[in-house]
């Protein structure tokens, strides 16, 4: 089935998110859409899926114009979508989520889930997904949640499948798996719209490419185009994709973690006996598949985990039992993994978000009295420095696109005088231009003698940034390896397998 958009336009107030966009997705092709953060990709797809109503333009399926006034129409037309922000109900089981909207019931109106569960198991097996239809969605790692979304689209026989940044939360293995599955689907005749910021994936899977910049289509490069070409087309300027890192000698130990255990409220031990040091002027990257205890380890260091034992020493001070406030003030910058939920207050202004953990210190406050003028003035400086794209620092953080939100968090955390930077998934969901910027910032922190602890599921990021790499698997650090370790070996370690010569 083919999908065609003609002059689709959508604006939010003064902002034109989609400006006369034309797009043609042929039968059985994987069509990649590239663009900076905030370029309007998700908006466009939400219009196609009926979640947003376009201001103007036409949508054609198999050459015929159709009216999509809601997702129901899109589904009926054979359009399925896996959203950037998952459309799953956390308190439902996988099966309940999948049958929702297409429920089968017995004659008493009671749900019949057995058929659906069977289907889920079948599709899950076919694509090697390992999804249990009875598990509660909120307990699943994001990677699995994503598979649930894909299963849903497949079960309902989408002829056009829209995938909005599906790989942002996947591990390398999972990503490879997904790309392989996409090709299988394409070969069966499904058309796929594929949005991603990872150029490698585009080159590997896409048949056609459309690049969007500031709401307009700026080109349809060939899939043979180099990553540099694609990147500069997206951003509108040349981008350096390789990270330049000068060698420096690490200083004394800044952070020392010993025998750290973290439990969750249900008593499960998520971090097991973890011991490691981070030196000044060193980047330690913790690699691992999502859900192996990295998030909890990061939170434990900052003081956000309630049930911990072991010891965490920063600069000679035992901060194990300190409150979050005290650890942050003792010199830790913390970039949380979930910026929407933990990193920002979306109804607060951008300026206020930039002082979320420094609001009660000079120059923002004298005693209990805050100074809005100074807050705004400093905000202007920060957003310039970190190249945050916005209309006004007094706008709410909710108005920012994903990439710019992350820049706000980084701008806040990296402009404090600290000894240690703890960053979880610092570039998740960012476009190439922003990644370049963030990586440079992190390296300059290290160069200025700070200790940096990065948690990332992104192998490229890990190898690009790290001076040393720790690999976490099921709550334990199973290996501490050199930065030169190969992608393949890291991949194996992350799966819990020790390749030759990596045992530490």
């Amino acid at each position, binding site marked *: 089935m083919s999908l065609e958009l003609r002059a689709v336009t959508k604006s939010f107030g003064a902002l034109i998110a989609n400006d006369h966009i034309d797009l043609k997705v042929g039968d059985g092709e994987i069509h990649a859409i590239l663009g900076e953060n905030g370029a309007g990709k998700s908006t466009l797809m939400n219009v196609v899926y009926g979640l947003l109503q376009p201001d103007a333009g036409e949508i054609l399926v198999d050459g015929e114009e159709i009216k999509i006034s*809601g997702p129901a129409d899109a589904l009926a037309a054979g359009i399925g979508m896996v959203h950037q922000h998952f459309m799953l109900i956390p308190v439902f089981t996988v099966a309940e989520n999948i049958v929702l*909207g297409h429920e089968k019931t017995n004659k008493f109106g009671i749900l019949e889930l057995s058929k659906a569960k069977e289907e889920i198991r079948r599709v899950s097996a076919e694509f090697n997904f390992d999804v249990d239809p009875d598990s509660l969605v909120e307990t699943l790692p994001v990677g699995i949640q994503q598979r649930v979304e894909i299963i849903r689209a497949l079960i309902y026989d989408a002829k056009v499948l829209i995938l909005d940044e599906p790989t942002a939360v996947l591990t390398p293995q999972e990503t490879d798996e997904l790309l392989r599955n996409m090709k299988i689907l394409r070969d069966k005749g499904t058309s796929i719209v594929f949005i991603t910021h990872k150029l490698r994936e585009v080159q590997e899977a896409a048949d056609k490419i459309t690049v969007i910049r500031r709401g307009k289509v700026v080109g349809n490069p060939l899939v043979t185009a180099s990553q540099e070409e694609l990147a500069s087309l997206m951003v509108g300027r040349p981008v350096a994709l390789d990270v330049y890192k000068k060698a420096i000698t690490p200083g004394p130990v800044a952070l020392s973690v010993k025998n750290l255990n973290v439990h969750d409220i249900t008593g499960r031990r998520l971090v097991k006996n973890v011991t490691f040091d981070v030196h000044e002027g060193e980047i330690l990257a913790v690699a691992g598949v999502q859900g192996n205890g990295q998030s909890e380890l990061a939170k434990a260091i900052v003081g956000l985990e309630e049930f911990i034992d072991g010891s965490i020493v920063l600069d000679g001070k035992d901060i194990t039992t300190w409150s979050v406030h005290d650890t942050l003030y003792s010199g830790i910058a913390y970039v949380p993994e979930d910026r929407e939920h933990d990193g920002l207050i979306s109804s607060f202004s951008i300026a206020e978000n930039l002082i979320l953990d420094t609001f009660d210190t000079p120059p923002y406050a004298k005693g209990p009295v805050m100074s809005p003028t100074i807050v705004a003035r400093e905000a202007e400086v920060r957003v310039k420095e970190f190249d945050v794209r916005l209309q006004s620092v007094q706008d709410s953080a909710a108005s920012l696109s994903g990439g710019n939100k992350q820049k706000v968090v980084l701008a806040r955390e990296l402009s404090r005088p600290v000894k240690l930077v703890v960053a979880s998934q610092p570039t998740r969901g960012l476009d190439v231009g922003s990644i370049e910027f963030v990586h440079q910032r992190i390296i300059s922190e290290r160069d200025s003698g700070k200790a940096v602890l990065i948690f990332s599921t992104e192998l490229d990021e890990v190898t690009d940034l790290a001076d040393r790499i720790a690999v976490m698997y099921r709550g334990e650090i199973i290996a501490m390896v050199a930065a030169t370790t190969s992608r393949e070996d890291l991949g194996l370690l992350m799966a819990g397998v020790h390749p030759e010569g990596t045992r530490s």
Partner: protein
Amino acid sequence: MTQVEVLSLSAPERRRRRMVVMMGVLGVFALVAFFIIPKQHDKATFGFVMDKEWVAVHEWAINSRHGSLGFAILAILAAILAYFQFRARKTIRIASAIFGVSFLMSFLCWAASGKFIPLTGLLQGGLLLAVPLIYGAMAGVLCERSGVINIAIEGQLLAGAFASGVLASLTQKTWIGLLIAPFAGALIAYLLAVFAIKFAIDQVILGFVLNVLVIGLTDFLYKRLLIPYQTTWNSGPILSPIKIPVLWKIPILGPIFFDQTIIVYLMYAIVILIHVGLFRSKWGLRMRAAGEHPTAAESVGINVNRTRFRNVILAGAIAGLGGAYFTIGAVGPFGKEMTAGKGFIALAALIFGRWSPLGAVSAALIFGFADNLQGVLSIIGTAIPSEFMLMAPYVATIIAVTGFVGRVRAPAADGVPYKRGESV
């Protein structure tokens, strides 16, 4: 226990541990307060028979000290049993049930020293006082599970009470009152739905305003119509209790549950239907989806606002039916503001019960029982001032919420209007 062991308790296990500790403390308290300290003792008499049940154990008399001691020991044993079950990582339901009954009996033996307590009647009364709360809470479940906050339960109950009282009076037929009550509740709910869903007014303001509106209108009509023309407009009949064959003869349980009016039987049905429907039916799945994550629901083709609209109206109908309890189900004529804040207690029961039907029912029953118990105790006489006795059900609710329930989570999108095409 070492620290690590403590840490590895799951949330339900933590709650269980808290309950075991509470049981132990309360068991010892019972022993001290009801046996050791009191010096006087007399015969405590308990009555069981309400009607012609099968086994006619009419009365049971026991020396109050013996009774308090015996039941306190039983309570402590139950606490010990609970501890071992907790250690063995089993549920402690049975032990806590035994504990609850024993503690209560230990208390009652002390309180009824030289007095008579009709035990069956005490429980039956507790159930009856809970009836409007349960209806109100069920209305809350439907409304809030679908995403609309229902502060207007009070108004819906009152509207139901008014309509059923007046119509039953005009026609002198209870069934007409019963029939009309849901419509009155639904009418208020319709206003709630139109303003909350279509015009996206703040649902909390709306709820309060609707309550004031219903109170104002019914007060006005009461004064202008029901008082002057009392014999035609406000002399409604009362539903007679229906004995369910066989079941009503079961000792104790029979009179409590199966010798009731149709309103109570409908309540059983509604609770069961909502409980099953909410978690196991298409209707419930869609309702919960609309209340948890409307965009996700919309993204699979569900019309969120229509789903909400229908469930809000249905909720109002249920509350309206519950309102009929006040008039045709209890006293007949309508009385000014006769719901007396029950809608707000129902709201609290809803939250207390974590927005689940059975949870809300338990909360309402606890409240109803505590309320009736204080009433009975004030009749047989206590040393506590009546004002403090009247506080008892409210205080009991606070203790239960803080001691046994803890943090609750509302449906994620409860109270958030949904406008399609505006948010993703």
